[in-house]
């Protein structure tokens, strides 16, 4: 831009600077599909492709007879046959067990699973009697998952909905990038829990490691024990009566209500200092590109 000097550019606002570079400002607007609900939409409770299962129809499968893909295919096959309660025996730490279930189902895993167990689920109620590896319940959309023992790192990574509960302790980066839903930890959680959290609620009945809620954009974290340190832009907030009511209801639901109640819980939210949305962002990108 030969007509604009460096000195003039420095004195301009960002918007003036972009215009001076020959670019127009663009107002960002929400993505809109202009779809409307219909008043008589129908009253289905499950997806059109979901099998019609009966919770009272129960079956057991021995995971020793299958590899992971085979076991997951068997679950789908049994759901197509109408089984609504499926018990998996001898999981022996298999990875990616019970993933991608998009329908109502009672899934009981008698033992421990490896990494990415019951990820990408939308609807089922899962109970795991043992331990779970990394990223259990990753990208979960809805339903409930209850783990009786401990869980590995990135527990509930990018979860979007539903209740993910671990009665024991979990590793680091619990609920990383979570976008909704509820994560409950009966014991302690490791470092960087709630990292880049965007929405949803996390409850830790025990202690939390270093950098809790680092770079969180939104959402709420409740901690019953000690917090080693808060991360960037994570700040304490007042625990209101509504928070207490919600905590009491949710923790009672999973038999994790502390004997001392919930008054001692610390509430952590985003300080909003990282909310750097900018309507000039597209132009800045063009400048770089």
């Amino acid at each position, binding site marked *: 831009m030969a007509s604009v000097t460096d000195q003039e550019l420095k004195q301009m606002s960002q918007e003036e600077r972009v215009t001076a570079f020959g670019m127009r400002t663009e107002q960002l607007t929400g993505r809109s599909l202009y779809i409307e609900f219909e008043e008589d939409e129908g009253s289905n409770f499950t997806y059109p*492709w979901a099998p019609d299962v009966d919770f009272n129809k129960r079956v057991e499968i021995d995971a020793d007879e299958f590899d992971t893909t085979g076991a997951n295919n068997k679950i789908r096959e049994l759901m197509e046959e109408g089984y609504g309660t499926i018990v998996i025996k001898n999981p022996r730490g298999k990875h990616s067990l019970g993933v991608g279930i998009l329908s109502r189902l009672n899934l009981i895993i008698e033992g421990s699973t490896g990494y990415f167990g019951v990820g990408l689920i939308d*609807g089922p109620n899962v109970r795991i009697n043992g331990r779970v590896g990394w990223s259990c319940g990753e990208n979960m959309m*809805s339903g409930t998952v209850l783990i009786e023992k401990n869980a590995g790192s990135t527990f509930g990574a990018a979860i979007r909905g539903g209740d993910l509960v671990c009665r024991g302790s979990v590793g680091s980066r619990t609920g990383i990038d979570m976008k909704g839903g509820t994560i409950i930890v009966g014991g302690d959680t490791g470092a960087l829990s709630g990292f880049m959290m965007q929405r949803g609620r996390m409850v830790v009945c025990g202690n939390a490691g270093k950098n809790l809620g680092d770079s969180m954009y939104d959402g709420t974290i409740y901690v019953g024990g000690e917090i080693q340190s808060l991360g960037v832009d994570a700040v304490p907030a007042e625990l209101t009566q509504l928070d207490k009511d919600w905590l009491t209801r949710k923790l009672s639901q999973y038999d994790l209500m502390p004997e001392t109640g919930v008054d001692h819980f610390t509430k952590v939210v985003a300080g909003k200092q990282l909310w750097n949305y900018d309507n000039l962002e597209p132009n800045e990108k063009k400048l770089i590109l």
Partner: protein
Amino acid sequence: MAGTQYRGSEITDVDQFLKDAGGLESEREKEIGQHIGYRYDVNLVPDYDRLTPFLAEYMEVMGWDDLNWLEDVHMGYEEGMPAVFDRNINGWVRVPDSISLPDNQQDRDMIARELLVKFQMSERHPLVALRKVYMKF
């Protein structure tokens, strides 16, 4: 009560975003010139005394003790129209004029949840077509 608070500003009127389509309320919204419609306070409890019969049956069918993922769903507003954010299509779905809105946010949230479940579970939902094309298993 859910929906009575809005990130960065107080909602004084349940019809606030119907009357003011721009909805530039908070300092951040004025700065960026954009209404951040999905940032209603989702951390507050739904009033279970206001459950619709459909939602009560939905919870029973799914085997849930509460609204589960629907606790995160609220009635929002897009360009002055009541709308619900559908995470499955990453967009707003508008509430038609033929559906009258109650005078409080809790009941509006319940209607939003019911409409969203019915829409997502219908053959009309875009995910049905996408699934036919892209489904892997």
